[in-house]
């Protein structure tokens, strides 16, 4: 129960923050952190729990964002309906792509996801009439709840916070549910999972669909916040890499991992860009790369699990030592 108390406490703390913090820039960083944490949560479902290493997740993010932007700018549809459409398209596409691609293993699955995201990017460039191609879509700044556009940061802050809290809660719940157990079982050993009565293909597909849905929601939030979207910005390989990066650094397959990863990397990245300015401009991405290599080689399980292990009660450690 303590866990709940603490979660609520932190949530309350974060909720109270905008009352104290007046600098919009800080709120902006929090909003970005919430967004990326949610996006990383989405990646975590398929990449962390189900162990399917996708580097094409930007496609779903982009599909959500574009569906909403096209809907509101071209057809005057409310962004709420755009959101629904984006989620539905993302889910359908993820099912259509996931089903055949799950047969591929290791690097081949990863390659196929990269190729898939590229195809989506190229199609976006190609369907100019709908997407404005490389020009991108500008959303007119018309504040209002109906348009899901706000003039201040605070509404975005709370929506972002809710998005992160919900997706994290979802991951938390998944981790403790039959569904989550099944995903992890499939990741750890597919044959053994089947022998335990788990239809591995089906559960991977479910995970891909839920994950795509969350990614699409993140995309919608992104576009409503940025009010501008272009293929370079959302379908970039770096977008997919970042989602994976944060999850892996935080701890793939743990509900807290993506949040920790995002909370570390986003502010750090903003800080590095501001501070490294001048002499070391642009080095923050190189820094990300090095961190990734180091994490993979030194603490492949990520920060959360490593810290957890350090904190393990003596009793558990004793048992483990006895075992060895």
């Amino acid at each position: 129960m303590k866990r709940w108390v603490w979660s609520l406490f932190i949530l309350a703390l974060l909720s109270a923050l905008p009352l104290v913090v007046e600098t919009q820039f800080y709120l902006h960083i929090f909003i970005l952190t919430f967004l990326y944490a949610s996006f990383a949560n989405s990646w975590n479902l398929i990449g962390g729990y189900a162990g399917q290493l996708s580097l094409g997740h930007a496609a779903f993010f982009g599909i959500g964002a574009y569906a909403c932007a096209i809907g509101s700018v071209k057809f005057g549809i409310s962004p709420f309906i755009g959101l629904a459409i984006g989620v539905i398209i993302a889910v359908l596409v993820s099912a259509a792509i996931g089903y055949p691609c799950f047969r591929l293993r290791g690097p081949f699955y990863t390659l196929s996801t990269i190729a898939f995201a590229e195809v989506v990017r190229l199609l976006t460039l190609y369907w100019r009439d709908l997407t404005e191609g490389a020009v991108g879509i500008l959303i007119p700044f018309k504040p209002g709840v109906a348009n899901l556009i706000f003039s201040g940061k605070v509404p975005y802050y709370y929506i972002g916070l809710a998005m992160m809290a919900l997706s994290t809660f979802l991951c938390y719940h998944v981790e403790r549910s039959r569904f989550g157990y099944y995903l992890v079982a499939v990741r750890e050993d597919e044959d053994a999972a089947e022998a335990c009565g788990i239809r591995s293909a089906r559960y991977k597909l479910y995970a891909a669909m839920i994950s795509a849905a969350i990614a699409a929601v993140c995309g919608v939030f992104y576009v409503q916040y940025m009010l501008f979207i272009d293929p370079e910005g959302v379908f970039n390989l770096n977008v997919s890499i970042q989602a994976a990066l944060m999850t892996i650094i935080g701890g793939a397959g743990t509900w807290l991992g993506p949040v920790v990863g995002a909370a570390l990397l986003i502010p750090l990245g903003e800080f590095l860009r501001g501070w490294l300015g001048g002499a070391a401009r642009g080095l923050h991405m190189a820094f990300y790369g090095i961190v990734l290599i180091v994490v993979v080689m030194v603490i492949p399980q990520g920060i959360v699990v490593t810290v957890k292990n350090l904190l393990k009660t003596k009793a558990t450690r004793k048992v483990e030592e006895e075992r060895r």
Partner: protein
Amino acid sequence: MRRNVLEVKDLTRRFGGLVAVDGVSFQIAEGELMGLIGPNGAGKTTIFNLISGHLLPTSGSIRFLDMDITHLKPPAARCLAGIGRTFQIVKPFGGLTVWDNVTIGALARHPDMGEARERARQMLEFVGLWGYKEVAARSLTLPGRKRLEMARAMATEPKLLLLDEVMAGLTPTEISEVLPMIRRFAEEFNVAIIVVEHVMAAVMRLCEWIVVIHHGKKISEGTPKEVTKDPKVIEAYLGEEAFIA
């Protein structure tokens, strides 16, 4: 009369030109313990894979509890039908705790998390791993992992349990601990158990009935006594009388 659980008829499986399993038939009843033995590469594990659905047969049929499961896919469906198995090379879900491992098995019958965990607890107590419930499966010792696999398979509440070399690599003391446990599976849960095993002494002590496979064919079957006396079996294991010397 005990009810027949599994009936295998003329089971055949080819890999390219190689006939790994060649027209094998046998059957097993509730609560029965059967040994499936044979020299290296005889095709025992292939037979297990055919029964558990990890492979599909080229010809022949498999009946399980009055149901034709010859082509039932995927393997998960067979588990849900009531066939549990372990793997020759143990496949625990390494990153998960012991309790979680068995819980995953139990979830097959108890969708409710609480029930599944309770069920898993019972199985862990049964195999004597309850004390290690929070330990990561991969840090268990080999005998521990073998027990874990059995507990996980039993947690799916099978009517038929396939044990693939659960005693290989264990010391005689460890084996003598495992034997009664397997016997209790059969007795207390009324499950039919087929054992593939290389530790002959253990198989002979454990099983009521032995089927001997050689080069994919069934060459003999009977009680342990009958089988060990069978010249065909001796030849399969020890080779023909020397004729070069």
